[in-house]
């Protein structure tokens, strides 16, 4: 007999060991329940982490844009509308009014990490006989590369951007037959025209982006797009990505800009995540409840089976508290052991799932996110559930009158 275990544990473990069938079946139940929860939670966490990682590393969390030009109905006399049909004006590429002052003000906020003004528009890239339509992003690399880590995607050259340099996507480079050091002509609909040298080639792992993306210095884009001294967008990242919405509203309130946060832009994703979380919580709750009822049912039967043992232990001098704890420990042990087995089951199935079910190109559907936190939380919660489930049977055991038990 283990000399370090307290009496309650000795008795609890021996009772569980002796009730072999009951113990095995209820352990099986708890294991499956916890396994389902671990599997589901880890998968959801993986999908979310995937998305959040993208948001964190490759896109601004807030974009400041010029306010849209609104068409106003024509009025000759107050109250009389002459032309009732109002057409939405074509949205020209506009600079943000006083963007420098706005950028400075936003940069001064303590909850903002990076502020990167950009000039973006479309253009035509020509080299020899080949021409392609491209999107040009002009920016200050010192700021912008802290938001979109362009240098991380370099496959050739470097992300150096002088006024006559350009970094291009890998597909575009191939289509134009251009390599590092080659020159390409870039022209825009607004009459801008520059000859730029390719300094770097990037591969974003996305064909569309690789075909159209180009990066140039802010000045270069300003002159190409006829927006000298202007900025079409201010990209912002913030310390707490979940506060982006509030910060965006705040900025829109203080400056004449339109502020879009990633939370608004990805509203659909959040609705989906929230729905999934709600159903996940419900499933957890009901699995937890059925685990609890299972443990309680097994222990109630065990209390009845062992009422003579309980009576004799009481006659021997075991207090009510001791008897109570014997059954609480049994509940806790069942919950904990089941959660350990369940974690192995859930993590194992997730691992296999992750290996076998892949996207068409063989890449993973979602990253494996199996953190120690999840298992620790599952074990703690299951042990707690077990103890709570054992409460009613334990109280019943503690209230057994030794005289009744012994008289039989």
């Amino acid at each position, binding site marked *: *007999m*283990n*000399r*370090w*275990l*307290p*009496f309650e544990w*000795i*008795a609890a473990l*021996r*009772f569980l*060991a*002796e009730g072999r069938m009951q113990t095995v079946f209820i352990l099986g139940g708890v294991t499956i329940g916890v396994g389902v929860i671990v599997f589901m939670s880890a998968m959801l966490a993986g999908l979310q982490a995937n998305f959040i990682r993208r948001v964190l590393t490759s896109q601004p969390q807030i974009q400041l844009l010029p306010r849209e030009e609104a068409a106003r109905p024509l009025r000759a006399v107050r109250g009389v509308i002459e032309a009732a049909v109002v057409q939405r004006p074509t949205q020209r590429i506009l600079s943000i009014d006083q963007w420098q002052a706005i950028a400075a003000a936003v940069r001064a906020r303590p909850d903002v990490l990076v502020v990167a003004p950009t000039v973006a528009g479309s253009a035509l890239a020509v080299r020899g006989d080949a021409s392609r339509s491209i999107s040009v992003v002009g920016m200050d690399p010192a700021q912008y590369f802290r938001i979109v880590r362009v240098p991380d995607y370099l496959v050739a050259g470097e992300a150096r951007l002088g006024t006559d340099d350009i970094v291009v996507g890998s597909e575009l480079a191939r289509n134009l037959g251009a390599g590092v050091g080659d020159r390409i002509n870039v022209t825009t609909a607004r009459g801008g025209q520059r000859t730029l040298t390719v300094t770097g080639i990037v591969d974003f792992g996305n064909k569309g982006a690789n075909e159209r993306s180009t990066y140039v210095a802010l000045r270069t884009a300003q002159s190409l797009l006829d927006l000298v001294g202007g900025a079409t967008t201010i990209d912002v990242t913030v310390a707490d990505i979940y506060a982006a919405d509030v910060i965006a509203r705040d900025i829109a309130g203080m400056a004449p800009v339109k502020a879009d946060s990633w939370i608004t832009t990805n509203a659909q994703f959040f609705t989906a995540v929230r729905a999934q979380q709600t159903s996940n919580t419900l499933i957890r709750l009901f699995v937890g409840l059925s685990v609890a009822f299972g443990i309680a049912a097994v222990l109630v039967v065990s209390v009845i089976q062992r009422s*003579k*043992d309980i*009576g*004799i*232990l*009481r*006659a*021997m*001098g*075991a*207090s*009510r508290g*001791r008897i109570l704890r014997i059954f609480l420990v049994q509940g806790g042990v069942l919950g904990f052991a089941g959660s350990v087995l369940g974690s192995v089951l859930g993590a194992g199935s997730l691992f296999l799932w992750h290996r076998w079910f892949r996207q068409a190109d063989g890449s993973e559907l979602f990253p494996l996110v199996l953190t120690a936190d999840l298992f620790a939380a599952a074990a703690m919660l299951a042990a707690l559930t077990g103890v709570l489930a054992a409460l009613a049977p334990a109280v019943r055991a503690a209230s057994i009158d*030794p*005289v009744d038990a*012994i*008289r*039989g």
Partner: protein
Amino acid sequence: MRSVAEILVLEAVRKSYGIGTPVETEVLHGIDLAVRAGEFLAIIGPSGSGKSTLLNIIGLLDRPTSGRLVIDGTDTTGLGDGDRTRLRGRTIGFVFQHHYLISAFTALENVMMPMIVDRGRADPAMARRAEELLGWMDLERWRNNRVNNLSGGQQQRVAVARALALDPPLVLADEPTGNLDTAAAEGVFARMRRINRERGTTFLLVTHNLALAERCDRIVEVVDGRIAAEPAGAHAGPAAG
């Protein structure tokens, strides 16, 4: 050996069941009894006369409806549940007719159980003490057997060893030989008697076996919840050897 001459004193102990219901019945009608330390007392009487009720009250498993009970110098009147449980654990050992060993444990572990309950955890000294007790009962060979695999007489000897685990001054045995054949009953009785002689442990033995009762120091007969006059032939006090 014991400092208190009278290990047990009952004064006007009454017990009623079903108090406040139409079937209220008084089972014990005022029991007066004094037992000296070291006595080996037989309690006899017809079935339903109240012997088990009396023993459960003495054993602090049940409370008298009225009257006074003093055990080993402690007046138990008005003691709370916790104090009664503690006093019971330290001063009283039980042997019941249906042995009531705990089937989840081995013979040795059953004997250790009162010590573990008392101290809160197991230690090697307890195992040695339990082995010694099983030795007295000639059960060393069976110490690691699950108790279900032992014969009735062996199980009852394990129960006696268990009752002695904490070396209590008082052992209460309610028909311990009731389910045993003559040879097994003799085995159990002889060992209890020897413990009584060698260690001075007080025994209260409820039995229907008059031959065994005759070999006790004193016989008390309970009839209809009262102590009848002591039958002739019973010894007046502890016999010497």
